[in-house]
């Protein structure tokens, strides 16, 4: 049998594992390609069953070429993520039909490892990791199978043994893998950027605020970010997570003016030291970063804008962990730029006459009194905080304050800022998140926690946060959304009661958080922190090399030592041990068995040399032969005789 020939069981296993690796891509590939792949895979299986001949080159080449052209027409590129994977899948399908020998199959096995990576481009959850881990085990089993004599056919036991060995190999690799993961110098990507790579799904805050934009998020229980505080967690009503600042109003929509990061107002903290915390943002495809109001430090990943907003250097398209600190009491922008203050007073030419008129009447009051007046108006009007406010017309503020009186945070913040401007106090809307849910030692902030509040500028105090929602519905701020509205409208996770779904989800989220923090979120910065804790300040310093290579060397030495111990010579059986001891005794007479000399020949030689002990030697030989090669037993007797021989 040709040792290079492929075993049909192995081919089937290879087909199965390739299918398993292409399966998660099924939703991303066009249906015609899936169909073509199914046909190619089916064709290969049919060839195995019928022992048929492989298609010749002149059949295979046009098929391959056709698939490549099809992928190009579909995606307009052969690069990038989805296009590249489609091309890859097409090539694997074609290669299957010319896989005859182990060498061809070896290439497919390597491509299988590569397919594992393509799956990670879209998703890095624990579940997928576990699935892919099983796939790697199967691929490795196949690889071991190719390099072991004999195939698998009809011998699942053999395949199982090889799978077990693959598992052992993976376990042995784990320590070194962990060390490499921690120590291998991380480089900030990307090295190259391909078209279509930018994330397409946007969730979370938008760069404008119009009626409904926040209330639409109120049922979205997906995670926006997670926070772990260094030390005590501040009270719930202080947890304002600052996001985009909406400065411009056109009568309907508040929009964010592009943040300018060249200058930023001065921020002074209170008497308390800044609060330090780490925030892990889920990708939201926007440039801004969320930070606790008011950021005390600016991280490397971002800058502070002229609107006191943290802006990232690029879009947050992957999970991002930031080490930040915040002043809970602050004075920001006391010396604010005149132009900014002027912009914070601009109102549309027309609209909302009633609100304008009422606010204008307060212009004579001191600024702080004007703020209180508007808040009192809101509570006095009996405004209600609700998840489903009515749709208001072109005079949205008038309709809300004096008409419908039902609104969500965007209505409150918008109306408040409108009236403040009308009263001559510079004001703006701040978007972000409020509160969060405690889960163990960290805080989960969900999209449903999205919130809008106001900021007014007061002489000598700078920008001050005012939350009109808090004035009307304090429980929204103190206890969360669910307490302020009828919570049966909300998804399970957002409700107040400690239901089972919620508890299970929280436990899972805790695991996911650990995974995100330590595996997915192991960034260059994180690596620097971990190494600093080990006393290594510089990558490529002598100490780093010593610790890195030393620990890997230790792991390797353990593997080598374990293997050497396992392959020690087998322990001889009891009879052989006694015979060896007999031989050692004879060595005193210069009698040493030759390499190829059996016991019988050696005994003959010994008897010839020592005729006076002939009977003894003969008896020991007989006992030994009986004990070792005969029916067994007689060990005691042999022992006695051998011991007796010494005297």
């Amino acid at each position, binding site marked *: 049998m040709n040792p290079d020939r492929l075993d049909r069981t192995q081919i089937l296993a290879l087909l199965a594992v390739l299918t398993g690796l292409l399966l998660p891509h099924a939703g991303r590939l066009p249906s015609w390609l899936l169909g073509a792949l199914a046909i190619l895979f089916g064709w290969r299986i049919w060839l195995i069953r019928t022992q048929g001949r492989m298609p010749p080159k002149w059949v295979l080449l046009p098929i391959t070429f056709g698939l490549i052209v099809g992928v190009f027409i579909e995606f307009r590129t052969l690069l990038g993520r989805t296009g590249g994977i489609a091309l890859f899948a097409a090539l694997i399908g074609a290669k299957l039909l010319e896989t005859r020998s182990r060498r061809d199959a*070896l290439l497919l096995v390597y491509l299988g490892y590569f397919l594992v990576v393509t799956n990670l481009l879209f998703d890095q959850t624990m579940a997928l990791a576990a699935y892919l881990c099983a796939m790697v085990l199967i691929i490795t089993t196949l690889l071991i199978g190719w390099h072991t004599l004999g195939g698998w056919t009809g011998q699942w036991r053999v395949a199982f043994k090889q799978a077990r060995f693959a598992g052992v190999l993976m376990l042995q690799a784990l320590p070194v893998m962990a060390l490499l993961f921690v120590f291998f110098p991380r480089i*900030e990507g990307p090295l190259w950027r391909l078209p279509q790579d930018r994330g397409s799904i946007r969730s979370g805050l938008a760069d404008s605020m119009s009626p409904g934009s926040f209330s639409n998020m109120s049922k979205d229980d997906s995670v926006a970010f997670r926070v772990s505080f260094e030390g005590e967690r501040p009270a719930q009503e202080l947890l304002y997570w600052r996001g985009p600042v909406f400065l411009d109003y056109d009568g309907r929509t508040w929009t964010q003016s592009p943040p300018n990061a060249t200058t930023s107002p001065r921020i002074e903290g209170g008497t308390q030291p800044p609060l330090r915390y780490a925030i892990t943002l889920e990708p939201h495809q926007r440039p801004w970063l969320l930070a606790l109001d008011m950021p005390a430090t600016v991280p490397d990943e971002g800058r502070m804008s002229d609107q006191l907003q943290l802006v990232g250097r690029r879009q947050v398209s992957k999970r991002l962990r930031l080490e930040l600190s915040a002043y809970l009491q602050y004075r920001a922008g006391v010396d604010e730029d005149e132009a900014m203050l002027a912009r914070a007073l601009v109102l549309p030419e027309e609209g909302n006459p009633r609100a304008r008129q009422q606010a204008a009447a307060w212009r004579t009051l001191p600024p702080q009194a004007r703020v209180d007046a508007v808040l009192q108006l809101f509570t006095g009007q009996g405004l209600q905080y609700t998840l489903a406010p009515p749709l208001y017309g072109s005079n949205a503020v008038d309709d809300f304050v004096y008409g419908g009186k039902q609104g969500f945070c965007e209505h409150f913040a918008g109306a408040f800022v409108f009236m403040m401007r009308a009263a001559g106090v510079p004001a703006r809307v701040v978007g972000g998140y409020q509160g969060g849910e405690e889960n163990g030692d960290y805080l989960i902030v969900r999209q449903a926690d999205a919130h809008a509040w106001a900021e007014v500028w007061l002489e000598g105090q700078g920008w001050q946060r005012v939350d009109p929602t808090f004035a009307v519905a304090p429980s929204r701020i103190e206890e969360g959304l669910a307490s302020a509205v009828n919570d049966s409208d909300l998804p399970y996770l957002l409700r107040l009661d400690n239901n089972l779904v919620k508890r299970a989800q929280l436990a899972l989220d805790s695991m996911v958080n650990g995974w995100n923090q330590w595996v997915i979120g192991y960034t260059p910065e994180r690596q620097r922190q971990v190494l600093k804790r080990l006393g290594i300040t510089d990558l490529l310093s002598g100490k780093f090399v010593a610790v890195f290579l030393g620990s890997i060397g230790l792991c390797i030495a353990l593997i080598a030592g374990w293997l050497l111990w396992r392959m020690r010579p087998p322990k001889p059986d009891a009879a052989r041990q006694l015979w060896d001891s007999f031989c050692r005794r004879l060595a005193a007479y210069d009698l040493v068995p030759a390499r190829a000399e059996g016991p019988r020949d050696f005994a003959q030689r010994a008897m010839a040399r020592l005729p006076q002990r002939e009977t003894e030697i003969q008896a020991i030989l007989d006992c030994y032969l009986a004990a070792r090669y005969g029916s067994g037993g007689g060990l005691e007797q042999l022992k006695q005789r051998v011991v007796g021989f010494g005297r």
Partner: protein
Amino acid sequence: MHPAPPPRRTWLAGLLAPLQQRWNRWLQRRHPHGMVAQRLTQNRVYIFLSRSGLVFCIMLVAMLGGAINYDLALAYLLVFLLASMALASVFHTFRNLLGLSLMPGRADPCFAGEVARFEVILENDSRLPRHNLGLRFEGPVEASDVAPGDTARVWLPLSASKRGWLVAPRLRIETHWPLGVFQAWSYAFFSQRALVYPKPENDPPPLPMAATGDGEGTLTPRGQDDFAGLRPFQRGDSPRHVAWKVAARDDALMVKEFHGQAAEALWLDWDAASGLIDTEARLSRLTAWVLAAHAAGLAYGLRLPGEVLAADQGEAHRDACLAALALHGIREAT
């Protein structure tokens, strides 16, 4: 005859030749010579990336590039897992050869132009099995497993072109187990010898009965009716002499023996192969005659210049004759 094509890359070969020689000398100093058992100790086992291992490394680098570019922590993890597995496999590959004992075994004689076979015995005195050990001289690889505490026998082919002693070249033993990323290998210089008989002439003239006979030109070898008894079948016996009735009854192949007369013995004489000047052609013809005479169950003698083998029959005699022919004019190798 076409002139041999000029060897390509001669300058490179010229540069490498001294290195190659040094390498061979160094190897020969490291490994014991002769027909002795050889244990593959640590300093005699070499290990390096195999060709598919190179592809594996290229793939890992590509995967690492993807991991960096897309900042995929799990892709990093996978690259490191595969790299660590390859690293661990170094030791598995190495130990697959380490401590193995190689022993030279028998060597089957053959005719020139055929393939001689050399036996190599592998002894595994460790507690772990050894997988897929490939052995070869230059030609195809013969692979074998060796169970713990067991031995395996591998027969290695080597094509023989010339009669005389065929000395086995350097034996290479290699393994790619388990992942094929690394290969470990070692050498043995056993210098096993196999006897290569001259190539029997195709379509030789009939046996030279007349030259030695009684004048009739034909010879009745042991009279077919002087039945003498039965002896066990040996390879080379003519099927015509098999006692088929006995075989049907006893399940044992027996051959009928007949009385032969020494005086009627056939002499295969160097001079009888007249008409051929070339020594090798004569030896070829004599070889063919020896085979024919043996197949016919004749008693025959062989007369070579300087060497005479008295008339006899049977396998041993045939082999002695073939050996004499193989070594004719060749000084006994020491």
